[in-house]
C-alpha cells in the first residue's frame, strides 16, 4: 500500500486506466440489458400506440426536414457574410450520438459514462449536448467509453451570456445537487451595472461561444433568482435553473471537432 502511495503518477494512471478498461464491458453489458428489457416492454405495447407514434414521428420529420433545408441556406449565407467581414472561422464539428451507460450522480460528483470512446474519435474536452442544450464536457476517454462531466458539476465552467442582455459575457458554473432536489448552477462575473429587462419572462442563459469550444447559442438554463452582489461589489451572481433534468438523460451527442488541433487550444482555457 505504501509502495502504491509513492509509485509514479504515470504508473498509477496506467493501473487506473487498466482497471477502468476491465470494468467498462460490464457497465456496457448492464446498460444493454436494461435496453433489452425496455425493448421487450415496448414489444408488448398495443399496435394502435405504435401507429399513433409513427404518425407523430412522420409529422415531426416533415417539419424538421424543412428546418434542416432552411438552416443549410442560412449557414451558407452566414459563412459568406463572415468571410466578407473577415471574421475568424469557427470550429466545425461532427456529431457522434452516444448512449448513457451509467450515471454517477452524488453529493461529490456529477458524471455520466457514455458508450463512445477513443475508437470513435472522441477526445478530452469535446462538448456533450442534446436537444435541450448543453449536457456537459468529456473529461476522460477510454477505448469504447468516455466519462463526461455534467453541466451540474461544480467542476464544470463555461462562458455564457444572458439572452436579451446586450454585451454581457458571464461565467456559468454547476452548483451540484442535493438528494431529492433538481441539479442547479449559477452565473457569476455579471457586471454590477448590468440592466436586466423589466417584465421579461424567465431570462434564458445560453453559451456565448467566447473563449471556449462550445458553439454559441446552446441553451444552459434560466435565471432562477434575484442577482446578488459579490463581496467586492463589482460583480453580481444569480442561481440558474437548468434547462433539463440531467439525471434523466439517456442519449446525448458528442461534438467532435473536425480539426482535433482546435480542441487543444480550448481545453486549457475552459
Amino acid at each position, binding site marked *: 500500500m505504501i509502495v502504491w502511495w509513492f509509485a509514479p*503518477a504515470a504508473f498509477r494512471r496506467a493501473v487506473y486506466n487498466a482497471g477502468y478498461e476491465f470494468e467498462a464491458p460490464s457497465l456496457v453489458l448492464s446498460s444493454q440489458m436494461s435496453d433489452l428489457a425496455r425493448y421487450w416492454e415496448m414489444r408488448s405495447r398495443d399496435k394502435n400506440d405504435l401507429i399513433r407514434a409513427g404518425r407523430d414521428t412522420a409529422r415531426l420529420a416533415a417539419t424538421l426536414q424543412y428546418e434542416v433545408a432552411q438552416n443549410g441556406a442560412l449557414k451558407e449565407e452566414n459563412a459568406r457574410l463572415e468571410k466578407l467581414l473577415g471574421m475568424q472561422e469557427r470550429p466545425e464539428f461532427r456529431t457522434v450520438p452516444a448512449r448513457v451507460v451509467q450515471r454517477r*450522480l452524488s453529493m461529490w460528483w456529477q458524471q455520466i459514462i457514455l458508450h463512445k470512446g477513443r475508437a470513435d474519435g472522441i477526445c478530452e474536452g469535446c462538448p456533450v449536448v442534446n436537444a435541450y442544450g448543453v449536457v456537459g464536457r468529456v473529461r476522460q476517454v477510454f477505448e469504447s467509453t468516455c466519462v463526461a462531466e455534467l453541466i451540474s458539476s461544480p467542476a464544470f465552467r463555461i462562458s455564457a451570456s444572458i439572452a436579451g442582455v446586450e454585451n454581457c459575457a458571464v461565467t456559468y458554473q454547476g452548483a451540484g445537487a442535493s438528494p431529492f432536489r433538481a441539479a442547479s448552477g449559477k452565473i457569476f462575473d455579471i457586471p454590477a451595472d448590468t440592466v436586466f429587462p423589466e417584465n421579461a419572462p424567465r431570462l434564458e442563459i445560453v453559451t456565448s461561444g467566447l473563449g471556449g469550444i462550445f458553439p454559441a447559442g446552446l441553451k444552459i438554463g434560466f435565471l432562477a433568482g434575484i442577482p446578488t452582489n459579490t463581496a467586492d461589489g463589482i460583480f453580481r451572481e444569480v442561481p440558474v435553473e437548468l434547462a433539463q433534468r440531467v439525471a434523466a438523460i439517456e442519449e446525448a451527442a458528442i461534438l467532435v471537432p473536425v480539426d482535433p488541433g482546435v480542441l487543444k487550444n480550448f481545453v486549457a482555457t475552459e
Partner: protein
Amino acid sequence: MGEAIRKFFSVGAFYWIPACVIAYIWIFLAGTVSDALSPWNLAIFAPGLLVIVPSLLMPFPRGLAVVLVSGFLFDFSLPIPFEKMDSALFAVGEKLFLFGEMTTVVPAPVGFGVTWLVIFFLALRFLRAYIDLSSPKQWLVCALILNFVVFLLWAFAFSWNELGTFAFWGGFLATAAVSSVFIVLAGWWFFDAVVSLYRLCGIDLVGEREVDEE
C-alpha cells in the same frame, strides 16, 4: 523446494481469484443500484462489507491480501481526481507529494478506500474475540457500523468546508441511510454467496474452523 512449489500452486493459494470476483460483483452491484437511484441524486457507498469476511473468517495474511485487492477495486471504481484523493487522506498527501504530483491533475486514485479498509481490517481482527463468528447477523451489524464510519471519514475528508451547512448533512444522512438499507437487503445474500464461493474453491476459512472445533 518441491513442497514450496506445490503449496504455491495449491487450490487454496488462488484465494485472490474468488476475492477479486466477489469484490468486483459487490462494487458493480452498488454502481448499478446507484445508477438506478440517480434521478434522486442518491448514491450507494458500501465498501464496508468487503472487510467483514476477510477479517473474521480468513487467516491474517490472506485476509489482508483480499482487503487490499478489494480496496484497490473500490478505488478504481471512484471517479475522483488524483489531487482530491490526496486531500482525502487528511492532508498527509500535501506533505508527501509537495514537490511533484500535487501540482498536476492525474485522474488516478491514491487509495482512500484501500487505506481505510486495511485500517478497519486490523481493528476488526482485534475485536474478533467479541464477535460471534458463526452469526451472519453479527457480521451484518459490524458491516453497517464499519461502513457508516468509513462514509463519515469520507464525507469529512471531502467536504470539510461544508460541515456547517444543512444541505451537507441532509445529503450525508440520505446517502448513509440508502447505503445502510442496501447493505441490509443485499448483505444476507452477499455473505451467503461469499462463504459458499470460498468453500467451493476449497479455501480455508479460519473462523468457520474455530466454530467447528468449539
